[in-house]
């Protein structure tokens, strides 16, 4: 006869069955930090180095699933991307219950979607956006697409660090540029040759609202312009939430170009998108927003208003001095 279990007993057993079996490892379980699509993330203590780290383990360890391979791929992808905007991986292995895991730096901070309300200024938000672009551009330069960029996958640390998390849906692309190349700036050709790595051919992975149309349709050959679309959606999120003033036209045009329905109409590289946002911040012309002579003159005036005011003050003073000079 099976025993009757209360709701709370089922819940406790569910937690027990899901918690990682750390026997035989150097880690000691502290608590659960969160749950992703593929697995749970736990706070553990590395008893050898006496520090806390985050441990990610898949939730279902069945042999038929491709999740073990995907988790390992995720760890390898992150390990390949040594960048201040990407959380470093420390270790990988297999638990006693057969589930693969990896450990990474424990990020103390808040998710961007939770943190955004505390960033009132447009320029501060755009600087965070540029840091996200830096990390994604670096990944693209190393032949890695993220494919699930959204505010919930960005962490903002207590000292202003910005980290792009959850590379579980990432994909290696064939024409990797290698570590030596680095982000090349303008006019990078889009990476189009896709090597399937642990994801079913044509399967739809990602988050609605942040996925590019071609990704939503499950097209197998998505390229870095899918991430550019998602970055456009992140920019839209940063602009829409809690900003009372109207969105500047140039910025709206940048968002529009990043989120163009046809991938051919988008920026061809993250760096181009980031350049436009940086130019906007500096009061320079942006490629997504061709402006007329009046608009250009006005932007020049706004950008140089301090010098213009100084010059005007000087001229007025000179005029007054001439006018009131004793004869």
């Amino acid at each position, binding site marked *: *006869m*099976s*025993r*009757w*279990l*209360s*709701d*709370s*007993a*089922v819940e*406790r*057993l*569910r*937690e*027990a*069955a*899901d*918690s990682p*079996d*750390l*026997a035989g490892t150097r880690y000691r379980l502290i608590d659960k930090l969160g*749950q992703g*699509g593929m*697995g*749970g993330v736990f706070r553990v203590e590395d008893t050898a180095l006496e520090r806390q780290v985050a441990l990610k383990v898949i*939730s*279902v*360890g*069945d*042999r*038929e*699933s491709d999740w073990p391979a995907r988790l390992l791929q995720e760890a390898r992808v992150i390990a390949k991307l040594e960048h201040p905007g990407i959380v470093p991986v420390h270790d990988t292995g297999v638990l*006693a*219950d057969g589930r693969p895991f990896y450990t990474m730096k424990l990020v103390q901070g808040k998710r961007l979607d939770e943190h955004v309300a505390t960033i009132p200024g447009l320029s501060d938000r755009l600087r965070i956006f540029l840091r996200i672009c830096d990390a994604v551009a670096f990944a693209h330069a190393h032949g890695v697409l993220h494919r699930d960029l959204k505010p919930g996958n960005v962490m903002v640390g207590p000292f202003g660090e910005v980290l792009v998390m959850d590379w579980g849906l990432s994909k290696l692309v064939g024409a990797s540029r290698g570590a030596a190349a680095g982000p090349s700036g303008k006019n990078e050709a889009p990476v189009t040759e896709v090597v399937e790595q642990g994801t079913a051919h044509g399967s739809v992975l990602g988050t609605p609202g942040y996925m590019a149309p071609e990704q939503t349709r499950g097209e197998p050959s998505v390229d870095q312009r899918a991430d550019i679309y998602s970055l456009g959606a992140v920019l839209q999120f940063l602009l829409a939430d809690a900003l009372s003033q109207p969105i500047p036209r140039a910025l709206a045009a940048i968002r529009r170009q990043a989120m163009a329905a046809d991938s051919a109409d988008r920026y061809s590289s993250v760096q181009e998108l980031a350049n436009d946002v940086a130019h906007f911040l500096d009061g320079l012309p942006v490629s997504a927003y061709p402006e007329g002579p009046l608009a250009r003159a006005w932007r020049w005036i706004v950008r140089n208003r301090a010098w213009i005011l100084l010059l005007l003050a000087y001229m007025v003073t000179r005029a007054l001095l001439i006018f009131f000079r004793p004869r």
Partner: protein
Amino acid sequence: MTDDTGIGGVHQQFPSTHWSLIEGTRSPHAEERRRALDTLITAYWKPVYKYIRLHWKKENEPAKDLTQEFFARLVEKGLLDRFDPERARLRTYLRLCVDGLVMNEDKAAQRVKRGGDVTLLPLDFESAEGELHQLPLAAAGNPEELFSREFARSLFGLALERLRRELEEKGKGLHFELLELYDIEEGGKQLTYDEVARRYRIKPTDVTNYLAYARREFRRILLDELHGMTATEDEFRREAQTLLGVKL
């Protein structure tokens, strides 16, 4: 302990992880078909009965008749042959079949009452009725959630019972006791490993190791049981995610 159903027996051997319940019910071999149906009935009869009682608000006696009629039809009408794993989870399909049956309740109940052409299963409705009184007042909820929750409760109960048997057979009864104390009993987690070690006169490291072993085995058995209750690998993964609280 007594056997709940008399079907399959207490010590029934569960199939290997690659065995499919649905394939079993469609097998040309009578023994394999019977074993598959036993497994299905063992896991589902309580969820079905409680669902009829709570969602359809049927009294005790009509709910018993409908539960018996449901499993009789499952066999006689070949309802499982019509199940298409591409269109729904097995759990959802069975719930919809129950809904269809209850909506034609009059005919169904009369057939059972006549008693002539229905083989009654030896189901322990008293225990199921007793469990209903322990559910919170707001237990009903939406039909899918209710059925899913009762199925999870049934599955966890079966897995726990199998764990107890297997550990006792291996002389690891203490491992099971520690799991009961720490992961089932209310307030168990408030005990420190040192306190538990003193209570059982073992070393604190043994508490850690025994608990880890029992949890690992419970997880294995739970997934194995679930594997047997699902039709495809995809359904298994989705059900495992639901049961382990993972949201995709």
